[in-house]
């Protein structure tokens, strides 16, 4: 396993950083400071180096410091002692440029496999209570960064779905012939079937990690597992094409495709009962943390290196026991970045953390 960490980060005209270079520790880096001081911007910069784009916003020019016309993020990576650089620059006229060791990169997946990251945001804590789209996204986000094939299936599936739903509405409103659906159903089944298989395989692989992490976090022996709610199997019909045909009238009436991976869900279970209704708030948080750490371990297994863990303002949402649990588990993975408004939210007995005080675009390392 390669031990990877970001040893240095340079930010120039990025968000509220005019020009800053920071040296990081290979273990836990705690960024603390008031709200709005720019803690999350540092995590965002690292995320951009990893994924080629921000997960917070869609327009790159919003990342540029006010009144400037270009930004630059540069990271110095250390993988088992070997140094390499990744760089992302954006210029209002020329657009975005990604470089790895000075070589231009067009496929952002290549970046990710060099510098994998896993982000944990406060809203992730609602994964169990929130809508099913969040849980599907949890699975899809992992799969698209490790499989070009899956990303292609998913893109094509959503295009076919979009066209099919439009056609369903047209059939209802304009009385088009229902046979027109055949040429779309064929592709829907082809891609949908493959998407589901990929998701099952992923879940099979992360299941052991989930249980192991939960036991450590919650310090209790409840069994935590999940079940993939497959809308196809749920309808008691194991043949996709027959089910689509059976649902055809209903779908036309609703103008929407009622079965398939876009309607599936991930049901989290504690002691074989639905975590959504039976787990306490604290238990739910432990489950989500355990699931996220399972993602970290799974990516490490696939990519041969520990992903960098970005924990954004998560500590304030957790009680003391869970803070301890999270940090001690995170310590066993790779490099960790953690933001917090309260420095003492990070359990001190852990030792190895390095602290950075952030104040309005300036960063001070506190050794």
């Amino acid at each position: 396993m390669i031990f990877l960490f970001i040893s240095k980060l340079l930010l120039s005209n990025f968000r509220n950083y005019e020009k800053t270079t920071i040296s990081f520790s290979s273990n836990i880096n705690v960024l603390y400071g008031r709200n709005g001081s720019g803690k999350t911007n540092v995590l965002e910069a690292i995320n951009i180096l990893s994924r080629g784009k921000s997960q917070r916003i869609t327009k790159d020019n919003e990342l540029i410091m006010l009144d400037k016309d270009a930004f630059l993020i540069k990271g110095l990576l250390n993988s088992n002692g070997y140094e390499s650089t990744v760089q992302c620059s954006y210029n209002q006229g020329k657009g975005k440029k990604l470089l790895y060791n000075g070589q231009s990169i067009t496929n952002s997946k290549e970046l990710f496999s060099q510098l994998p990251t896993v982000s944990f945001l406060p809203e992730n804590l609602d994964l169990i209570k929130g809508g099913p789209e969040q849980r599907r996204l949890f699975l899809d986000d992992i799969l698209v960064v490790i499989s070009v094939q899956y990303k292609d299936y998913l893109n094509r599936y959503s295009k076919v779905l979009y066209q099919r739903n439009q056609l369903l509405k047209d059939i209802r409103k304009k009385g088009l012939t229902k046979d027109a659906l055949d040429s779309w159903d064929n592709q829907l089944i082809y891609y949908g079937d493959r998407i589901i298989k990929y998701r099952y395989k992923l879940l099979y692989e992360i299941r052991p990690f989930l249980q192991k992490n939960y036991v450590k976090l919650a310090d209790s022996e409840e069994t935590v597992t999940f079940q993939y709610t497959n809308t196809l199997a749920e309808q008691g019909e194991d043949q996709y094409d027959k089910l689509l045909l059976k649902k055809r009238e209903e779908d036309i009436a609703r103008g929407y495709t009622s079965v398939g991976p876009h309607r599936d869900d991930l049901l989290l279970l504690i002691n074989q009962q639905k975590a959504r209704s039976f787990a306490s708030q604290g238990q739910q948080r432990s489950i989500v943390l355990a699931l996220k750490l399972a993602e970290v371990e799974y990516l490490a297994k696939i990519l041969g290196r520990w992903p960098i863990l970005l924990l954004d303002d998560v500590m304030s949402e957790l009680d003391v026991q869970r803070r301890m649990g999270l940090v001690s588990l995170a310590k066993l993975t790779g490099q960790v970045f953690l933001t917090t408004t309260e420095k003492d939210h990070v359990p001190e007995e852990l030792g190895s953390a390095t602290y950075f005080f952030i104040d309005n675009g300036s960063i001070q390392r506190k050794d």
Partner: protein
Amino acid sequence: MYARSIAQLIEELGKLPGIGPKSAQRLAFHLLFQSKEEVKALIEAIVKAKEEVKYCSQCQNLTDINPCPICSDLNREKWLLCVVENPQDVAAMERIREYRGQYHVLHGVISPMDGVGPEDLKIRELLQRLSNQDIKEIIIATNPTVEGEATAMYLAKLIKPLGIKLTRIARGLPEGGDIDYVDQLTLVRALEGRREIDN
């Protein structure tokens, strides 16, 4: 800002595909500084093309002679038909100088979100051709997009019962593209579209 007739010219040019406001402005001024003869030649070319270009009664390609030169070429195979999305695809196929059969141009693909259904394409004309002519093989060469595939499937459903041999162009690695050079997406699609080696 501009004289009314110039502004109007810019606006009309800006309606053309791929022409933004800046380009429209540049084209307008280019035309204004051209000689009267040059401008007239352009206008005549546009009007002539608009008046004379029609759909070929056979293949539905755009032509000014009916039937088009490809359909009336006696040296081409009459039994082989290649179905494409648009006239540009015919031009691309012709450039390779390998294909010696007939064409049929659909003028689009099925796309509900753009309001395009089978009845908006030249499919009725295709079926008519199949009943009048002795076609033995049809190659469906729509693009490998989900819309192109849906159109191919729709056509397959109509044509299969007629007992005509039906093929679909392959997709995958480009010729001369070394495996370590092609992008990942091309490679996964080539892997997906793999076929058995028969000897």
